[in-house]
């Protein structure tokens, strides 16, 4: 197992490097640059800007300088669009925000989703099943960009209960709507996957044996069925967790949280190369890490799996 983890981590390094080079090249292939604007800059002003940010170097040298900065100094460079801040600062400011609402939304989605899915499977074709399926389909078809403005309308304008947006680490009332809006569709998917996986497991031999031994139904479900039923859920959760904690552009836009989800999309549209690279690396590294964690969890849950 340890050997496996080390091997996986060793592969992660060239994977990340490849990601960096590919993103860098693709980004520079896109038309326009960080300083392309409606009011075309005089050539000399543009030249000064390019010189300041090293954009006049050949591409290979830019990549080299960038990787060197990241690896040796852990310096992700300056933002081209937010000249007062470095990419490190932008991520340090925005990531804790998305990490907070993303983790909470993840917990909410997993707890509610697994519970709904399990209940639905246990009460297969009962009213609870139809209710759970109904709720999760409803949550799935109501995308968060529709839900977010509705939440603001109801809880801010009509009920005057919650602030309509913004962010504060000390005041959880700012967290509620982002968490609800972000978690619902994931919750619905988790509920559906749990339900179908659970139904399959509940029909399997070891469950029949457990029931034949006279084991109480709640023990059968919780101890013998739930664990194997979680396998497909967990492989779904790995990448989902990463995408939740690295933020959602929709949540960031509608609730003005200042998270990096919007910063990521903006950086691509603004050609803010350094910010885009910084967040790409962050998302890439986290994805690699959590895929590894999922694989380890797999082995722990299913003793048949050996690496």
């Amino acid at each position, binding site marked *: 197992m340890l050997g496996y983890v080390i091997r996986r981590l060793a592969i992660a390094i060239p994977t990340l490097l490849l990601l960096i080079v590919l993103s860098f090249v693709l980004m520079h292939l*896109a*038309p*326009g*640059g960080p*300083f*392309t*604007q*409606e*009011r*075309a*800059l*005089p050539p*000399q*002003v543009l030249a*000064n*800007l390019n*010189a*300041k*940010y090293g954009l006049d170097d050949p591409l290979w040298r830019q990549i080299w300088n960038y990787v060197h900065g990241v690896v040796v100094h852990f310096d992700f460079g*300056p933002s081209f*669009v*937010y*000249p*007062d*801040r*470095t990419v490190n600062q*932008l991520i340090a*400011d*925005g990531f804790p925000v998305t990490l907070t609402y993303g983790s909470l939304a993840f917990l909410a989605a997993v707890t509610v989703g697994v519970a709904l899915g399990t209940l639905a499977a246990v009460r297969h074709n009962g009213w609870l099943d139809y209710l759970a399926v109904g709720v999760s389909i409803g949550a799935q078809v109501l995308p968060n960009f529709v839900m*977010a*403005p509705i939440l*603001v*309308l109801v809880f*801010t*304008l009509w009920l*005057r209960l919650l*602030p*309509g*947006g*913004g*962010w504060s680490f000390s005041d959880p009332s700012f967290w509620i709507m982002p968490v609800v809006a972000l978690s619902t569709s994931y919750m619905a998917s988790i509920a559906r996957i749990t339900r179908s996986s659970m139904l399959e497991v509940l029909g399997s031999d070891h469950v029949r044996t457990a029931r034949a031994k006279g084991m109480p139904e709640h023990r059968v479900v919780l101890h013998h069925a739930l664990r194997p039923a979680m396998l497909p859920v967990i492989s779904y959760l790995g990448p989902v967790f990463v995408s939740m904690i690295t933020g959602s552009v929709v949540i*960031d*836009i*509608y609730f*003005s*949280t*200042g*998270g990096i989800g*919007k*910063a990521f999309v903006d950086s691509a*549209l*603004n*050609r803010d190369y350094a910010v885009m690279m910084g967040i790409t690396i962050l998302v890439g590294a986290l994805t690699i890490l959590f895929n590894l964690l999922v694989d380890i969890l797999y082995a722990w849950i299913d003793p048949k799996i050996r690496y």
Partner: protein
Amino acid sequence: MTKLFTTTALLIVMALPASAVQPAEGETLAESQTYTYWLLDAIKTLDPAKNTDVEGSDVLRQLFEGLLNEDGTGGMVPGAAESYDESEDRLTYTFTLRDARWSNGDPVTAGDFVYAWRRVVDPRTASEYAWFLELMNIRNATQIIAGQLPPDQLGVRAIDDKTLEVRLTAPTPFFLKTLAHATTYPVPQRVVEEHGDAWTQPGNLVGNGAFTLDSHTLGVDITLSRNPDYWDAANVVMQTVRGVTVNDNNVGLTRYLAGELDRVQIPAGQYPRLSQEHPDQAVSIPYACSYAYVFNVSDKGPAALKDVRVRQALSLGLNRDIIVNQVLQGGQKPAYSWTHWAIDGFQAPDAEIASMTQEERSDRARALLAEAGYGPDNPVSLTLQYNMDENHKKLAIAAQQFWKPLGVKITLNNVEWKVHTDRMQSQDFDMARYAWCADYNEASTFLDWFRTDGYNSGKWSNAEYDRLLADSKTAEDTAPLYKRAEEILAAEVPAAFVYHYAKVDMINPAIRGIPTRNVTNSWYAKDLYRLAE
């Protein structure tokens, strides 16, 4: 350096006190003097030399103060400067600064302006707005930006702590109007050098404006509070100003209605409803920007557009009344000139097209196209490029429909912003959406665009037009020259002008002092106050 002009025949001393808006008799002030306004996006920078956008300028105007300020109608009033002299040849301005202090207690000196302006043109600063000092015609700005001269050769110097001399390369009629622009604000040398790029962070930033920076969370909010050391602090009523970012305009409106914001832009198409429901809150203010479809008449452009008759027909066929009254619905006006109608001193020529009915225009358009050899049997095929945006899309679809019956086939080309800009600047388009906003309240800010050496993405060129604009720089009375220039644009149609902007906002009636007659929409929080509700 030559010696100071002593033969100042033209001595203009502005003796006016800075006109702070004051609560009127009988008005009761609210206990909490706060003003919370909507920001569409994050404030990118608080460095006056690096700022490029309107929302950034709005904040900088509170944190810093330039030589002059704008009043509620767009006129210039004293700011950091108390008075100025203009030399007879109009090439040298000498400003006398008032006694004022930075928020750290240091005196505001002429040297602070010299430092700030040199910093803007210094290639090491790499300011995106370095061109603004070229536009102001400050001596040597162009050469310094190009790296041919050191920054200390800029035509600006401190004669003493209270006297600033600015020398220009050419008489510049709009020079004074540029002095309230954020790029010209002074910056505190000691603070900038101590903190580097981080000097604009809360805690570091030192300004000479009526407000100081409390906090700034990128993409969330920015909070300013009254600066007790400001020279006119006695007349500043507002205590706290907060800009709140809401990226979605509709959510912004909801939050305004919930009382979280005192001012928000009205989303397109909602003005008629809101002005009925809240007549005391929905306002439409002329805003000095113009919207146009630019024709590419360069070598890379389509042959059809090189024919002036085709360009005229396209302009005639555009039903601007439908665009402003049915699509935009916010008090915008149909544009028959490039210069915004409300620009100070601008006299629009009597455009024939403005007085025609749309039917007459369409008939004329058909006739012109037929003359040029086009018609329903031999349609003109063109692409219309615009950047992704709901309103641009609506307008482009409308234009496509207006032109269709004339025998013009339009392919719509919806592209990402950077692609749009890149293609326009490399003449890789047929027709493209474009908008221009005034840098200062004078017609040349618009008209310079179509000069042969102007931004002019369609590469239209006209010798008489260039000469008029060149002459206007030294003319006593510029109005007839600008009028003639607009006549040339109307005849030659390098672009179809579509509409003149209006700023359509909801404003909390308890907030007083927001200027509604200044086309640049510059506002000063020091003039605002909040009434008890």
